[in-house]
Each structure stands twice: as C-alpha cells, then as structure tokens.
C-alpha cells in the first residue's frame, strides 16, 4: 500500500500523459471518424470507396501494428517527430477513427428515412441534409457506443508505453520493477488511475443511454 503513496508523483505524471493522449486522440478521432462516416454515405464513389477500405483495413489491424507504423515506419518515410507523443496520437486517432466511423454510420442508418426525405423535399442539398438533419439525430443515438469507443481509447493508450511514451502503464511497469516485493500494490495503483478515467465515462454512457431511451 505504501508504495502507491510513495510513488504518487510518478503515477500522477503518467496519469496526466495518459489523459493527454486520450483527450487529444479522442478529439481528432471524433472529427476524422465523422468525416469518414459522411464520406461513406456521400454521392462521390471514390470517397465511399476510400472510407470503406480505410475502415475495413484499420478495424482488422492490431493496434500494435498501427503503433509500429506511426512510430517506426513514418520516421523512415521522413516524418520524424521531436515528441513521441505525436506518433502515439497519430496511431491512436487513426485506429479509433475507424471504429467511430462505423458507430456513426450505424447511427445514420438508424435515423428514419422520412427525416431525409422531408429535408430533401424542402430543397436541402446533401451537405445540408447530413449536417443539419441526419447527423444531429444520429449523434444522439450513437453517443453511448461512442463513449464506449472512447473508453477503449483510454485503455488502448496503454500500448504507447511500449512505443516510446512514458505514460501510466509504462510507469506501472517501471515501478513494478523497482518494487519487486509489492508488485500487486503497484499494479492496483495503476488500475485505480485508469478507472479514474474510465468509470466516470462508463457512468456517463449509462446516463445518456437512459436519457435517449426515454426521449424516444
């Protein structure tokens, strides 16, 4: 138990970096994922094709491979970063965006056809139909699954610990080595800090789920 209190500065530093990775990647992934979903239902065939191929390939790629590409292959292509966090953010947001695109797409499909028809009949164009009518309604139903994806993102950021970013899990491994006699408590401490992010998010998902269910 003492080991957790003793190592609070390390935990805190790791916690902040994990939070930073998750928040930044989460925002980028939300924007990129929504764009991908919009491309998926757009009139331009190439956009549809790109979106479909992207989602299909990325969803079937292990996260570690995504990290390898961002942290090792990209520098070889001449894209080098001063901060390894950037590679982690690229990997995490590129990976998460595919899942968000799928969730948003199923949300778009869940909006009754009449909504789009009504919008079109009053003369709206594709962009307007999507951004003013469909997506706002779709987003409401996809918020619970989106939050679940964000929870997964928080946890997935732990892979960054093996790819040059010293975040919460990396500190955990380091502390576990330094305190071989109190490994269990070290890891319990790590778990606590992850739950500090994921449990409130899960709670939020439940609340929204209930709200949405009543609204229908």
């Amino acid at each position, binding site marked *: 138990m003492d080991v957790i209190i003793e190592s609070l500065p390390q935990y805190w530093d790791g916690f902040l970096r994990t939070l930073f990775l998750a928040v930044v990647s989460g925002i980028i992934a939300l924007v990129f994922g929504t764009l991908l979903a919009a491309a998926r239902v757009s009139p331009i065939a190439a956009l549809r094709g790109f979106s479909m191929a992207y989602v299909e390939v990325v969803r079937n790629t292990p996260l570690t491979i995504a990290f390898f590409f961002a942290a090792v292959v990209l520098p070889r292509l001449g894209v080098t970063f001063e901060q390894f966090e950037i590679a982690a953010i690229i990997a995490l947001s590129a990976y998460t965006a595919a899942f968000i695109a799928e969730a948003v797409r199923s949300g778009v499909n869940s909006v009754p056809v009449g909504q789009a028809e009504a919008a079109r009949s009053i003369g709206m164009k594709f962009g307007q139909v999507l951004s003013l009518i469909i997506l706002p309604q779709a987003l409401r139903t996809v918020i619970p699954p989106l939050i679940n994806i964000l929870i997964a993102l928080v946890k997935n950021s732990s892979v960054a610990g093996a*790819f040059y970013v010293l975040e919460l899990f990396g500190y955990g*491994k380091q502390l576990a*080595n330094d305190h*071989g006699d109190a490994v269990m408590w070290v890891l319990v401490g790590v778990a606590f800090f992850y739950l500090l992010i994921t449990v409130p998010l899960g709670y939020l998902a439940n609340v929204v789920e209930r709200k949405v269910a009543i609204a229908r």
Partner: protein
Amino acid sequence: MKAFLTRRKSLLVAASAALALSLSACGGSSSTSNPPVAEKPSFAADSTMAKLSSAGKITIGTKFDQPLFGQKGLDGKPVGFDVEIGKLLAAKLGIPADKIEWVETVSANREQFIKQGKVDLIVATYTISDKRKTEVDFAGPYYEAGQALMVNKDNSSITKPEDVKGKKVCSVTGSTPASTIVEKYGAVLVPAATYSACLEPLRNKQVEAVTTDNVILAGFVNKEPDAFKLASDETFTKEPYGIGLKKDDKVFRSWINDQLEAFDKDGSYKKAWEATAGAVIKTAPKLPAIDRY
C-alpha cells in the same frame, strides 16, 4: 525457361549465402555444441543433483531475446553464452543437451518461476542483488557485465553517463538500467518493449542514447558498426550474472559453484564464450570470483 530456372537458382544460392552471412554475424549461433555428457555421475542421495540426474532431464529458464546470451534461433532453440553454461551444467549431471527443456523467462517472472519450481535453474543475464537474494539463491557469478551507453557513430557529446542529464535515452520499460539512468543520472526515459526496438529511434536521432548492459549493446554495435558505437568502454554499474536456483538449496548451489570453477580450469568456460559472445566481444572474460555466501 532454362535461363529463368538458372536465374532462380542463383537467386536461391544468393539468398542462402546472405542468410548464412547474417547467421554468422549473430555470433556463432550456428554452434549447437554438445558438451561431453558425464556417464553415470554419482551424487549424495536426496540432493537436487541426484534427483535431476536420475530423472534424466532438466528445465532451464533463459531469455529468448538477449543477443549473445540467450536468443531464440531460427530452429526455435535458444543460443548464446547463457545457454552454453546451462548445457555444460546439465552435461555434468549426465543430461544430454537434447534433454534440456528451455523455458523463456522474462525479467519480471524469474523469481516466481524458481519459487514455484517451474524451472530447476535460471541462466538468463540474471544480475545478483541482495534484494533478489531474499527470494532466490544465486550460484556464480559466471560473468560480470555493466551498464553502458550506446550512441550514434557521429555523436561525440556523450562519453559518460553524466552527459545524458535531461536528454532522451531509450531503454526497456520496467528494467533496472532504465531506473538507474533516470534516478542516478537524470535522463529522460524513452521506454520501449525490447532493446532492439530502441535502435530505430536512435538511428532517426529521436533519442540521444540507448542504455543497458554493455554486452547487449556490444551485440548491436557489432551488427551495425557504421551506425552505432559505445559511448565509452567503461561501464558505470556492475552487473554480476548469477545462476538462479531455489532458496536454501545450499548443496546444489555449492555444487554449481564447483562446476563453474572446474569449467574455468578445463577451458570449457572459455570455449563456451568463444562459441557465442566471443565472436563479438573480443576480450575473453575471466571467471569472476565465485560468491560463496
């Protein structure tokens, strides 16, 4: 058609030549030595040696990803100096090399594997420390390594550990060298899953140095002498590698210690080194003074 065939053939030849080349570069990994097995050795009844000897097999833990010491080869079997030491000991128990079961141990689970009897011995670049001695016993040391720094060939600003203060240094997450470089020398740790994963960031100049035991770094430098070099030949820690075994098995421990000294005398220690790490690290080690505590 014929031309095509010959071209293909020559390609294959070139391929196997390249492979052979790369294999030899790995430090004599092609040597699957089989030390002479002792015939019916006799041991005091009830001793661990007697048990292992009569069982005719032994389980040894080693690393599978440590160049020169314990690294899994293409045939799936580990090769390296640690492996040779393990084979020599097994042979003295009358156990041939093919009756040894090699188990991969990582730094994190070595003590537990010994405690639970999952392995009989661990020879795995296992640094003897007082803390670990409270959980397991150590025979040896059979080798003394030390922490060092590896930098890019053109880097002359880092020559000693004090030079890395505030600079990015890559090491394996949760390893002792990583703790040392951060806590003692104030480096900024860039964690990786394996030491070899540190090579790419170093090459791309995203980190200034890589740190771990000198023998591991020497393996990397040997493979790419045009890219990397050791910051200095001096080491800044002492890492005496010991052979881990169950706590309080004093008879077994002193038997292993006797054997290590015998290996030194009859030249098999030197031979084991030359067949493995010696291909890269030219200065042959002297067996360190055995720590008979």
